[in-house]
């Protein structure tokens, strides 16, 4: 079975473009908000975490370090929250036309990905102003972001299929995300956590992804899974979790997608 035929790609492109156009319709600044939103968020965080609560004063380029984490976490939140409600939100389409259902979920992930791209542009500008030197290690961001996309899409598949029958799922997921934000070293550096707990943090794929991204983008003094974990089982745990989440999500979605039209 071919998943990405020319026809499917055209549908996907149309859905992503429409979503992007609709989002800023009626606002005076329009698409500029995609850049302004992360820019202002960063400005606020910069002031709070460098002057008011200097959590990472011993970390090189801490503002950029913080922003990298926030941007990746925001993508994860946006992709999974939009993904979870994507099937129901496109219910009118699903009930009338026989399009491959998975396109709806992929379209919502892609539209979050566009925002991530724009935010990363702002991060790069901030990084250059902050004195971070561009290097070849920035290329490592490609596999890291691919892993993040795989995780977010897998969760979106699972949640969107569950949301059709069980509408409480988005509230549960929201609480989960809130807890996850503090369980992942985003606003606090991992160096503030006693070393013996590091391996427990790295079982969380988001912690591994964010720390690796900081290592690649900001400073090679970042504690990563590669430098602090020596057991092969813990080392492979985040990757196994990402793979398993994607496979379980995709299979669950495939099984239930045949009945979306009548269940929505």
């Amino acid at each position, binding site marked *: 079975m071919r998943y990405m035929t020319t026809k499917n790609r055209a549908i996907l492109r149309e859905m992503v473009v429409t979503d992007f156009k609709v989002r800023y319709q009626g606002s005076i600044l329009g698409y500029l908000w995609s850049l302004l939103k992360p820019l202002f968020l960063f400005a606020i965080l910069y002031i709070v975490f460098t002057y008011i609560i200097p959590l990472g004063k011993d970390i090189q380029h801490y503002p950029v370090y913080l922003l990298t984490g926030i941007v990746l976490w925001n993508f994860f939140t946006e992709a999974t929250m939009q993904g979870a409600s994507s099937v129901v939100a496109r219910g009118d389409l*699903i*009930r*009338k*036309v*026989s399009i491959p259902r998975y396109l709806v979920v992929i379209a919502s992930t892609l539209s979050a990905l566009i925002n991530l791209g724009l935010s990363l542009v702002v991060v790069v500008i901030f990084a250059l102003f902050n004195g971070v030197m561009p290097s070849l290690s920035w290329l490592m961001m490609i596999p890291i972001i691919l892993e993040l996309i795989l995780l977010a899409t897998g969760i979106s598949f699972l949640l969107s299929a569950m949301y059709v*029958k069980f509408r409480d799922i988005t509230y549960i997921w929201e609480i989960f995300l809130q807890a996850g934000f503090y369980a992942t070293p985003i606003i606090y550096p991992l160096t503030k956590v006693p070393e013996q707990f590091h391996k427990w943090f790295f079982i969380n794929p988001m912690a591994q992804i964010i720390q690796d991204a900081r290592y690649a983008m900001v400073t090679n003094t970042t504690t990563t899974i590669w430098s602090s974990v020596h057991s092969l089982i813990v080392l492979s745990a985040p990757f196994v979790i990402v793979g398993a989440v994607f496979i379980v999500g995709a299979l669950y979605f495939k099984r239930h997608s*045949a*009945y979306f*039209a*009548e269940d929505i």
Partner: protein
Amino acid sequence: MADKEIAVSVNDIHKEFILPQSKNSTFKQTVVNIVKKNNKVTQKTLDGVSFDIHKGDFFGIVGRNGSGKSTLLKLIAGVYTPTAGSIEVH
């Protein structure tokens, strides 16, 4: 007629819907349905429909309200999945 190519072939289609009143839409209902061991109530909409449409044919479907005309069309269009049977669209 017989030598014309088949455009749509519907073979022994069955379609059942779970009635909305038996779905667990509230917390109370979910608990009641589990405690009372209520089974889901299904409605047979289509029960063994078969026909072939040849290329170039004019084909009419006539039926009373709620007899399953739209369901049949949605099944052919691929929006719904049949409970049993198969549909081929060439």
